[in-house]
């Protein structure tokens, strides 16, 4: 178990290094940061001096090594766009993204599981068919359109929910949350639903097809023949055996929801990391982009690790295999 964790950590470090390296080699194609730092009056000489002072003239490997050396000392530099420490900037944005991602993952999991089980059990029912058709919309409509559509219905026409921002937030230490104020909760509704929509339909369809598969297996038929109540068969025997693929998908999706909630955050002007990244790319804010991509690498590594641990809990066979001495 400990060896397994250590191996994962080494892997994590390598993944993050690779991500940072690829990111760095791509930055110069995004454009020249100087163009957005100075105004149109700056002379060529001023521009060249600033470029040299920021080390942008150095070859890419040198810039990369400098970034790593500083990052190892906990110094991520100042944002070119805002003149503020990058670590503080990311720390400020993190709670908004995590809150949004966790709530939408929760919504997707609970509703997706429920509807998946329901449509599997009542697979010829009218309601089940309506839900299945509606889920096609969720899979095929781009997030951007869902978001804008919700804004026009609930903000512009009905005026029930705010169209942008996070509302009033409450500060708990360094963490901020919108769950404790009314405007904060209202602001969460549409972004959470938008972000959860795709995940939800995915989980629902997955659960449904896995359930249908399991229901056809021999042991379910036996269980039924033995007169075990349907409720127990559905939830204890069938559902539990569908969970491994569902957990894999949910885990992977949680990673991408945290890392790439970019579209949802942009549409709802949600002050999270994704929106920060988009704004940073637009002005080639290299320190923020580099730190953000490292962070994304970290998120995926951690989520994968957690997913593996959940497998161990769900599937006893895996547990005995990993508890055994090295193969």
């Amino acid at each position, binding site marked *: 178990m400990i060896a397994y964790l250590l191996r994962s950590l080494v892997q994590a470090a390598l993944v993050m290094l690779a991500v940072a390296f690829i990111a760095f080699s791509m930055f110069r194609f995004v454009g020249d940061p100087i163009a957005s730092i100075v105004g149109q009056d700056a*002379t060529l000489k001023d521009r060249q001096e600033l470029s040299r002072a920021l080390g942008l003239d150095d070859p890419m490997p040198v810039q990369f090594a400098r970034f790593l050396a500083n990052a190892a000392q906990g110094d991520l530099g100042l944002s*070119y766009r805002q003149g503020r420490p990058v670590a503080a900037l990311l720390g400020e944005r993190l709670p908004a993204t995590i809150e949004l991602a966790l709530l939408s993952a929760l919504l997707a999991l609970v509703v997706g599981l429920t509807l998946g089980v329901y449509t599997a059990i009542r697979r010829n029912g009218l309601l089940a068919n309506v839900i299945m058709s509606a889920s096609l919309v969720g899979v095929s409509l781009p997030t951007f359109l869902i978001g804008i559509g919700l804004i026009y219905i609930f903000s512009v026409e009905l005026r029930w929910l705010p169209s942008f921002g996070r509302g009033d937030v409450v500060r708990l230490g360094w963490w901020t949350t919108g769950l404790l104020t009314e405007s904060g909760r209202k602001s969460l509704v549409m972004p959470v639903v938008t972000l959860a929509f795709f995940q939800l339909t995915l989980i629902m369809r997955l659960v449904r097809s896995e359930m249908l598969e399991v229901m056809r297996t021999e042991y379910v038929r036996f269980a039924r023949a033995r007169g075990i109540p349907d409720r127990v068969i559905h939830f204890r025997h069938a559902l539990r055996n569908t969970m491994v693929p569902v957990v894999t998908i949910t885990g992977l999706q949680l990673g991408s929801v945290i890392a790439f909630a970019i579209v949802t955050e942009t549409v709802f002007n949600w*002050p999270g990391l994704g929106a920060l990244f988009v*704004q940073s790319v637009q002005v080639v804010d290299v320190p923020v982009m580099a730190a953000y991509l490292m962070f994304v690498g970290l998120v995926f590594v951690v989520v994968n690790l957690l997913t593996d641990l959940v497998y161990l809990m769900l599937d006893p066979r895996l547990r005995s295999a990993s508890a055994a001495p090295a193969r």
Partner: protein
Amino acid sequence: MSTKRFALAALLAGATFLTAVSVEARTLRWARSQDATTLDPHSGNTGPNHVMGHNIYEPLVLRAFDGKLQGALATEWRVLPDDPSTWEFKLRPNVKFHNGNAFTADDVVFSLKRAMQPAADMKSLLVSVEDVTKVDDLTVRIKTKGPNALLVNNLTNMFIMDKEWSEQNNATQVQDLKSKTENFATRNAMGTGPFQLVSREPDQRTVMRRFENYWGRDAVQNDITEIVYRPIPEAATRVAALLSGEVDWVQDLPPQDIERLRTAQGVRVNTGPENRPIFLGMNVGVPELRSSDVKGKNPFADVRVRQAVNGAINRDAIQRVVMRGQSQPAGMIASPLVNGYTKELDTPPKYDVAAARKMIADAGYPNGFSTTLHCTNDRYVNDEGICQAVVGMLGQIGIKATLVAQSLRVHFPAIQRGEYDFYLLGWGIPTFDSHYVFNDLYRTKTSSAGTWNGTGFSDPELDKKIDSLNSEVDLAKRNATIAEIWKQVQASNVYAPIHNQFIAYGMRSDFDIPVDVENTPKVRFIESRRS
């Protein structure tokens, strides 16, 4: 929120019950695609920063919505009669900073010198300044390196901060990206302006409250007591927030939404020309175009080809179709407010495809030639659409242009390095003087001039004339030189002017905010519409 607003109203009612002004609190919720990058007034020389600065800070002189120069912290200014290299500014008496400190000449000397520090982007506007000195508490002199008749035009966004506050808070140095820590002035501010900073969350929300001891309080024509500035980058969200009544004013309305919003209930749209001509540049300096099938010579080096390009562009069609009426076709790179502008020069070249085709044949290219047109896709109103239209129009005279549309972060540096054969550019003219156009777009490229001249155009005689504008103090003589230069550069046809773009403000109908020609609207000049 409503209780907070009520409390504020009650507070203001208590504070102002002796004066005759309206005591009801009124908030202006203002949205725009971009936030100011910093509140440090001397760090970034960009529009969004100046817009924010004009609420909290004040310069010595500024421009109203119509572009007219007027005194702000200075009441009078002149070049000393016995020394043409020295400007003298008389400062406004009885002005207070938001912290109660008195505004004096020391603050002006401190702020101008701070703006000249190496890390300050505003230094570009003060390169001609040699020294700034205090004469007495309300008089300041600026000594320039040689006479500079137009220095005052460079001061309209040069904000004055409280010297004492800056010293107390370790903000005497301008924000520097090479530093490891954040400068205090990045998120804090201490000026004399009509609003004082309440809170600043970059990219999210900046709240300002009316400064009750503002010297110009009586002249303000509105009852706005609070500004909440919220950057909303996504255009569709910005428009939705206006329609739903969550914001009062959207400063950058997307052009495709203008017509729809004009008919929407409770919303007003104001449009007007921005001081920003849009034009195409042709590279005349390289021996051979990098992107052309013509080898060994440069078609753009022939003035007849450049005239043909100018004559083949249907500017009215671009205005009608691409811009949906939101532009003014142009014949010169200067908007009507710029010193040196004339109606004759600005008459667009005649659109005549037959004549253009003949000219390009006379130049030796009866079958035309190919080239690449470089364009931005994130800077000007419909920039990519303009270029697509131009590509089609040039096809009619045999010029096969391939369009490459990119971000300004790639486009602008390439123009400055002179890497493009044919490109789109727009040029704001903050000094409202032709010299600003000549010096950057037509003058021979050096490390300190001709920065944006990506055409390779170079004429040493013309350079001398352009440079003479810097020091000429006889305005009549200077204007004659400007007219002479315009005649010459217009004949060169090195650029093909397209139009001056319009900008659109969308607002709730209880506001009526005119379009500011510099797009740095000042809230103090907004007139109240509420009955």
